[in-house]
């Protein structure tokens, strides 16, 4: 799938080279994003070269900054970036733009105020996590009454999207008056989430729902619910719509999740970039859809 480099040197004149830097390539969401990107490239291999990279996990900030630097060193024309942090990547983005590289921000929006302060123009293409999480939370809220006990198992608490999703869940719970008895950090992983969920179930016999900031943690929570013999009594919702949740949704173990269409996210970014390269116009930010997924959508 590697398409740049010496192989195409001969016939290449001025094909733009586009570097796509996502977060964890070990996470299904970004894997889908990468797959969509490769597919797009396969269909449009005449119009650009692709270098696709990711970091070890969402927390590896320095690694991502280093990747951007390396792409600058490679003198690519475009960097499509899903930043691991909305602020810390700004200095290096500024350096990239200063080198004349077009930078498109996808997935996780860079801090608008700092971007403005840095005096650069970086269009954003991506979903609103808070809104998506609220959609999921609202769907759950239909089954809840005021005062019902619910808990949130969040992602790594420093991550922007983790914070956004937590807030979305909280918005929805507030609207129905549910009682959020605990918000804990499951660091995006199944096993941690399952340990936390088990503890919450033991500690709060009246728990009605577990809101998880991604689907992997939801799977862990489902396992905990099952082990405690409370299937059906405690609802579980997630986020991301990874394929593994489909059966859980259909079987009623999970109530809902959200789809951000990761498959298309980077593609939008690439198309934006090609447009900028072609006619120099910088398009507006584009908010991609986030949709609620329940058993009936499958």
């Amino acid at each position, binding site marked *: 799938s590697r398409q740049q480099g010496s192989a195409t040197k001969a016939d290449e004149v001025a094909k733009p080279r586009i570097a796509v830097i996502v977060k964890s390539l070990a996470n299904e969401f970004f894997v889908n994003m990468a797959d969509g990107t490769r597919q797009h490239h396969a269909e449009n291999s005449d119009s650009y070269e692709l270098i696709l990279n990711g970091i070890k*996990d969402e927390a590896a900030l320095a690694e991502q900054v280093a990747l951007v630097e390396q792409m600058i060193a490679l003198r690519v024309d475009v960097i499509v970036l899903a930043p691991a942090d909305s602020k810390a990547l700004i200095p290096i983005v500024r350096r990239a733009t200063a080198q004349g590289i077009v930078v498109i921000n996808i997935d996780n929006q860079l801090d608008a105020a700092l971007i403005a302060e840095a005096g650069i123009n970086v269009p954003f293409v991506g979903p609103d996590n808070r809104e998506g999480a609220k959609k999921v939370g609202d769907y759950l809220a239909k089954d809840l009454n005021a005062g019902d006990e619910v808990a949130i198992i969040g992602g790594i608490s420093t991550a922007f999207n983790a914070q956004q999703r937590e807030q979305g869940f909280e918005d929805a719970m507030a609207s129905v008056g549910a009682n959020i008895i605990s918000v804990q950090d499951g660091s995006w992983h*199944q096993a941690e989430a399952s340990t936390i969920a088990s*503890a919450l179930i033991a500690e709060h016999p009246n728990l009605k729902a577990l809101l998880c900031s991604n689907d992997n943690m939801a799977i862990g929570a*489902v*396992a905990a619910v099952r082990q*405690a013999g409370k299937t059906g009594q405690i609802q579980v919702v997630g986020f991301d719509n990874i394929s593994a949740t489909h059966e859980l949704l259909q079987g009623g173990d999970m109530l809902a999740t959200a789809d951000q269409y990761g498959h298309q996210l980077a593609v939008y970014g690439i198309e934006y970039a090609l447009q900028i390269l072609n006619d120099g116009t910088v398009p507006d930010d584009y908010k991609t859809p986030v949709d609620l997924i329940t058993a009936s959508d499958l």
Partner: protein
Amino acid sequence: MPQPDEKVPLTQRTGIFRGEYFGLLGALLALILFFSVQSEYFFSVLTFTTLANQIPSLTVIAVGMTFVLIIAGIDLSVGSVMALSGSVLGLALLDMNAPLWFAGILCLMTGLACGAFNGLVVTRWSVPSFIVTLGMLEIARGGAYLVTGSQTKYIGSTVESVSAPLPGINLSPALFVAIATVVLGQLLLSRTVFGRRMIAVGTNEEAVHLSGVNVSRIKLMVFSLAGLLAGLGGLFQVGYLQSADPNAGIGLELSAIAAVVVGGTSLSGGKGSVVNTLLGVLIIAVLQTGLAQIGATEPMKRVITGLVIIAAVILDVYRNRSGGIGSYFKRFFKS
């Protein structure tokens, strides 16, 4: 310097209620007491059965790690190998439609193969096990991503039988297997020729070599066993979560080593106990569950976990010194 507990006569050394458990048991009981006071629901059957059903995979992996540390090696790859084995299990069940017993064997064999690779490189080229298993940590993780296409595979109730609580007792078959592993592991270590040779290799490899015992074979077998047990841990984990997650077990190597070392096994080899490892696992598991139940914030969880790990071992050091609390217990028990 001679280790104080080395002077304890063997009759006591092999008995189940050895005085040396008291330090760790004390730490464990103190934790349980603390959380029981902090949370009204902690001290309940549900908490303990839940906890018991969560520990099997860490337990068997820690047993394997105990052996590796006893021969003065280290195995950093257990978490990744667990993920890879679980991924293979998922692949076999979902994509090959294999029956569970066959998929289970494949899963164990994957672990065994990774462990054997570790052992082979360690013995063949005398590369430090830290490096070999660090390499394997990366390789097996990469393998897990390849096998699953970097996706969590949902398997469903096909694998439920492994880790689902048995009706009536609410404990899972995995737990019984894990306990059997601990018992057999302790017997292997203290009662068999192989076990004594492991200890000897960890103490003075050259002396063992000179007495005509094949040191490489022992090392190879220990690393293979650790791999096999990591595979077993993968099986339990997949059964518990009913899905194969290529990101499973990240950082597990440190938890496993922590459990083993808290259990008094020396990192420099030649000394260790499987039963104590189980106590180490319990301390860590109770701590995690308890902190989650009292709803500690993430920073507090980290700080407390760190302090408890250090404190448990300090307590253990005191116990081993004459005159400490532990020796009081010891004397009490002997009389």
